[in-house]
C-alpha cells in the first residue's frame, strides 16, 4: 500500500514535469498554428547546456533555467523570420510544412549533440538529485520535486499570462479569429512570432526539468516527444490547463504502471488511450 501511494505521488510529480515540457508545444500548435516537432530536441539541447554548466562551472540547473529560457526566447525570435515564416507563408497546410521542417531541425540538433557530447548517456547529479524528500508523508526524489515545481510554475504562469494580461488576450484573439484581430489593429504576424518565441523559451524549462529526472542521450528527445505529443493531443492544442490535467493523467499511468506492471505495458496503455481519445474526441479532452 505504501509503495502504491508513493508511486501515485511520484506519478503526479512526473506529470507536472511533463506538463512543463508539453505546454509550450501546445501553445505553439494552438495559438500560432506551428507544429514544432523540434520542441523536445530544443529542450534536450538546453538539458545538455545545463549539464555542461553544472559539470564545468557548478551552476545549479535551477539557475541555468533562468539563463537558458530567455536565451531560447531570443532564439525563437530569430528562428521565426528565418525558418518558420518562409515555411508557413503561402502554404495550404502549415502543420505539414512546419512538421517536416522541425523534424529536420530535431535531427540536426541530435547529431550536433552527439558530436559535442558523444552518444553516451548523461546524468545530471546535483546535491538534491537523490535526496529523499518527504512531502505530505510520501518520500520522493529531490530532483523530481524540483522538476515538478518548475513545470507547474510554468503552466500556471502561462495560464495567468494568457488570461490576465492584455497581450495574452491579443494572443487568444489572433488564435480564435485572425481577421477579427487584424481589424481591431492587432498585428497578427508579430503576435504569432511572440507566441512561437515564448513556446521555444518554455522548451528550456521543460527540457531541463526532464533532464534532471532521466538519464539522457542525444536521441532522448524522441522518447520525450512521443509522450509530450500524447499529452498535447489529449489535452487539446492550445488548452493550457488541459495540458496540465492530461500530463497529470499520463504521469499517473507512468507512475502506477511502473509499480504494478512490467515496463512494456506503459506505452501500450498510454498509446491505447491515445487511439481511443483520437477516435472519440480528436480535438482533445479539454477543448
Amino acid at each position, binding site marked *: 500500500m505504501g509503495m502504491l501511494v508513493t508511486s501515485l505521488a511520484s506519478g503526479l510529480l512526473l506529470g507536472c514535469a511533463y506538463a512543463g515540457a508539453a505546454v509550450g508545444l501546445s501553445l505553439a500548435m494552438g495559438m500560432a498554428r506551428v507544429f514544432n516537432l523540434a520542441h523536445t530536441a530544443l529542450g534536450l539541447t538546453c538539458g545538455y547546456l545545463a549539464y555542461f554548466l553544472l559539470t564545468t562551472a557548478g551552476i545549479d540547473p535551477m539557475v541555468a533555467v533562468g539563463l537558458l529560457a530567455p536565451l531560447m526566447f531570443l532564439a525563437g525570435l530569430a528562428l521565426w523570420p528565418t525558418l518558420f515564416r518562409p515555411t508557413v507563408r503561402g502554404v495550404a497546410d502549415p502543420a505539414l510544412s512546419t512538421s517536416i521542417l522541425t523534424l529536420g531541425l530535431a535531427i540536426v540538433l541530435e547529431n550536433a549533440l552527439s558530436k559535442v557530447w558523444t552518444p553516451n548517456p548523461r546524468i545530471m547529479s546535483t546535491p538534491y538529485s537523490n535526496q529523499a524528500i518527504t512531502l505530505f508523508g510520501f518520500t520522493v526524489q529531490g530532483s523530481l520535486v524540483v522538476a515538478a515545481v518548475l513545470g507547474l510554475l510554468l503552466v500556471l504562469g502561462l495560464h495567468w499570462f494568457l488570461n490576465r494580461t492584455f497581450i495574452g488576450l491579443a494572443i*487568444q484573439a489572433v488564435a480564435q479569429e485572425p481577421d477579427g*484581430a487584424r*481589424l481591431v489593429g*492587432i*498585428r497578427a504576424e508579430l503576435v504569432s512570432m511572440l507566441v512561437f518565441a515564448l513556446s521555444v523559451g518554455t522548451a528550456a524549462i521543460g527540457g531541463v526539468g526532464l533532464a534532471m529526472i532521466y538519464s539522457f542521450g542525444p536521441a532522448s528527445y524522441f522518447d520525450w516527444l512521443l509522450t509530450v505529443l500524447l499529452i498535447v493531443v489529449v489535452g487539446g492544442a492550445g488548452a493550457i490547463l488541459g495540458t496540465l490535467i492530461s500530463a497529470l493523467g499520463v504521469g499517473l499511468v507512468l507512475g502506477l504502471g511502473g509499480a504494478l506492471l512490467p515496463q512494456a505495458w506503459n506505452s501500450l496503455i498510454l498509446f491505447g488511450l491515445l487511439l481511443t481519445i483520437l477516435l472519440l474526441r480528436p480535438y482533445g479532452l479539454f477543448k
Partner: protein
Amino acid sequence: MLEVSGLTVYYGPLPAVREASLKVAAGQFVGLIGPNGAGKTTLLKAVSGLLRPAAGRVVFDGTDITGWPAERICELGLVHVPEGRKLFPRLTVLDNLRLGAYLPRARAESDRALKEVFDLFPRLYERRRQLAGTLSGGEQQMLAIGRGLAARPRLLILDEPTLGLSPRLAHEILEVIKRLNSERRLTLLVVSQEVVHLLKLADYAFVMETGRITAEGPASELIADPKVRKVYVGL
C-alpha cells in the same frame, strides 16, 4: 473622407470588383446595396485592408492607403465591422470590447468607449461576463458594432449588420446605427439586405451589380427609382 477610385479586386481567379469608385463625405451616412455576389463584401475588404486590390486607389482622409495591411488602416480610424462579425468566440463580451480598444489611441479612452457601448446596448452590459460565442445572433451583432466603436472610428464600415436577424431586431439595429450618425456625427458606410429601410435612413447610396457600381444618388431618389424598386424592393 473616403475616396475609392477604379478599384479592381480579385477573389480567386476572377475579378469580384471591377473598377469600382465611390465616395463618402465626412458626416455622411452612405448605403451600399446590391444582390448577393455583387462584390460588396469584397469591395469593403479591399478598403479595410483584409484583401489587396489588383488596381485602383483607396484614399482615406487624404492618405493613400491602397494595399496597406488592415491593422495599420484601423490605426487611422477606418474601422470595419465585417460580415460574419469575426468576434473572438471564447473570450468574454468585456474582453472582446477591450480588444476593440487595442490600439494605443483607443486604449487611452477605453473606459469611456465601454460606457458608451453599454449605454447604446444595455443588453451587452448584462452579458458582459458571458463568452461571445454563447450570445444570440442579435447580441453578437451588437457586440461586433460595439467592438468597432471601441476602436474609436472616424469612419465605420458595417457589412450586413442585420443579416440573419428577425425583422424587428434588424430595424432596431439600423435605428441605433442611424443614431450614431445623427447624434454623434459618425461617418458610416453600410451594406444591408434591408434595402428599403437602409435607403430610408441613409443620405446617399451606391448600387453594385456584378462587381461594378451601376447607380448612385441621394437615397431618397434611389428609393423612388422604378428600376431600383423593381430589383431590390420587389414592388
